[in-house]
Structure formats: C-alpha cells, structure tokens
C-alpha cells in the first residue's frame, strides 16, 4: 500500500491518513484482519510527527475501522461501526455537503452529479470484486 501526504490540500495530515485507510478498506485493498503499519514505522517512512500518526490510528479506532490489540498492533476490524445510525447519517451528510459545494463551484448540474454518484458506486463495486478474485 502506498501512502501519500499532500501538504497542498490544506487537509490536516491525520485526516489524510485516516482517509487513506478508509478508502483502502472500502476498495478491498485492506481487509478485516489486515495489520496496519506501526505508528513508528509509518511516521519514519512519511517523516511526519508520531503524534500525528497516533492520532489518526486512535480516531480510526474510535470509529471502529481498526482495533488495537495490545502489544500486537492495529488491525482492520470486521465491518461493525459503533456509531448510531443517526450519527452515521449525519457524518455522511456533512461529507456530501462538501461534494455538493464543489459541484456548484465547478458548475456541474444536479443531474450530472447524481449520475456521477451512481457511476462511482458501481466503480467501487468493480474494484472490490477485482480485489476479491
């Protein structure tokens, strides 16, 4: 797995790391039981602060994406989110708002946006399937 930090996006580094783990899980590049690099290894490789990596891993644990097994490291969990449905929907709504704002600025119509969303969902299905083969 290739990790990339981009300082030009303005997105805090720990969020970028969280995002990369989440999309790896969503596309099937990482699966339940897979081990994440240790905080130290990750920090050294990316030359970022250890606290930054530790924070990303801790937040992923809170969200139930990974679990920390004492002394062994962090592992991707089975898909069980500890968050209530209302909270989940709220978080997703926030993320979608960003997309809608972007679409507005890029002058993409609502219909095109809906079609694009369908297309991306299908794309992720394909990638997951390909990873499974």
């Amino acid at each position, binding site marked *: 797995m290739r990790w990339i930090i981009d300082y030009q996006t303005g997105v805090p580094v720990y969020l970028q790391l969280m995002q990369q783990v989440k999309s790896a899980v969503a596309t099937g590049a990482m699966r339940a039981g897979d081990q994440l690099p240790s905080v130290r290894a990750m920090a050294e490789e990316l030359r970022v602060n250890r606290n930054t990596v530790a924070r990303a891993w801790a937040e992923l644990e809170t969200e139930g994406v990974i679990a920390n097994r004492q002394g062994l490291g962090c592992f991707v969990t089975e898909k069980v989110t500890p968050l209530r449905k209302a909270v989940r929907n709220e978080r997703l709504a926030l993320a979608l708002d960003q997309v809608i704002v972007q679409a507005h*600025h890029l002058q993409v119509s609502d219909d095109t946006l809906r079609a694009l969303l369908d297309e991306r969902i299908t794309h992720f299905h394909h990638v997951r399937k390909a990873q499974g083969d």
Partner: protein
Amino acid sequence: MAPVISLTDLRIRYGSKDAVNGLSLQVEAGRCHALLGRNGAGKTSAMRALLGLLRPDQGAVRLFGLDPAKHEAEVKSRLAWVPDSPSFYPWMSVREALAYAASTRTGWRKDIEEHLCSRFTLDLDAPTSGLSKGEKTQLALTCAVSADPELLVLDEPTTGLDPLVRRQFLEAVIGTFQDRQPEKKTIFVSTHLISEFEGIIDDFTVLAGGRAVLSADADGARQRFCRLRGWFDETVPPQAAIPSVLSTKRDGRLLELVVDSGADETRAWLQGAGASRIETTALSLEEIFVCAA
C-alpha cells in the same frame, strides 16, 4: 502542567541593536515547535537565551516551569541540544566522545547509543577530528538522543548536510527520540529547510526583526493561507479590494491571489467577476514563511 518552554517579553541587545525585541512564546509538552526566520531575525539569540548561553537584557525564560538561572543543573539534565556546527575534543575518538557525553548525564541509554551508531554507521575508533560535517552532526544527535532528554533543541541541525544524511537525521529524531512516551518528548527546532521538517512541525513562530510576526499551528495555518487561481475567458478584471489578499499575480487570462483567511469571499468575488474555473490550494509552511517574514 507548566509549558516546557515559556519565553515572556524577551529582549536581547547587542550595543544599540535589538536582536530580540519582545519575543513571547510557549511550547507544550509533546509538541514540535519550529522557530523560523531569515538570517539575522533573532533565532540564534533566542535559542542561546533559552539554553542559558546568553543572558537576556529583559524578559523571562522558563523551562519546565523553572528559572534556568536558579535551577541550572535540573534544567540542563532534562534537555539536550544539537548545535549547527557541533564540535568535539579533537583528541578523542568517537567512542571516547560518547563515553564522555555519557559520563555527564544520568539516565544514559546505552541501547539508543548502540542503535544510532549502527544506523549511522559511525566508526567508533575514528578520531573526531577527522569526521565530516555530516558525521559530526550524527554524533551530536546520538549524544543528545542517548541522554533520553524530555526536550530536544535543534539549532539549524541539517544545514549543509547532504539529502541522505538529512533524511537519516529526521528519521532518527522521529523513530528514536520520540520512541518512548512521545507525549512527553518535546522538540524545539530552528531551521531554514522548512519543507523537510513540514511533517513533524506541530506549531511554529516566524521571527522578523526580533519579534514574532506569526505564531500558529501548522494544520491551522495551512487551512488559513490559500492560493486561489481563477481563469477568465475574456479579460482579467482589475484587482478587487479584498482585505485578506496578500499578493496578486497576473498571467494572461489567469489571476492568482494569495489570501490569509477569507478564501470563501475571494472565491465568491472571482466567481462574480466571471472566472470560468477556480482552483484553491493550501500554502506549504515554506510559502507561508515567505509571506510572513
């Protein structure tokens, strides 16, 4: 808990010239704080006052909540520093220099010393007088980190080193110094090579003319300072009066604006002025430094 470093209204004069003119800053435990500034901005003077190598004309220095003038031994036992050009007694070998450094500290970590020596491939029998600048810096870092201090002070540590040595230096700081109890391991670094340290800097202070002109956390600053680029089909409009715009550049049908906060209002203005495409990117710490210093 008291901040690890606290400088209050620090003033340092050389004759009639103010090198540091009312500098205040605080560094909390576990943070990496960078002191950025052009040559002559007052970085080294501030650093020397912090280390007790120079007495400020005015203001207070507190380390771990203590006055270093009154608690010199305790303060010094809890910090270690790597100067920009480390020097060793020239008659000593690397092994002797390490043993000498170890003899001055309690809590010396022999395991860290061995780990870093093999990582840096330092020849223990070599005389320190024959070491290259890169090797001297590696030895100085080994001495500093093996002492297992709470505070690591780095004064322009990687200036003049080749890229590979700079990379190893940073990996050793992250992997070894911060290895145990990273929440207690504080770093205070002055550097010109900002992009290299970008990932480990939590907070920074930009010094200019002996004063702090910008003090911020790195994530917050990258969200605050943006570059907006608007492309126009026809003519580029005249400059708008948006107070947050720091600089403007025109290039054909492209208008490029650097803003401090106010990215949203600037984007709205570009849209209103008829931009057909708008792109926003965050500034790197180095670019922020150039804007501020």
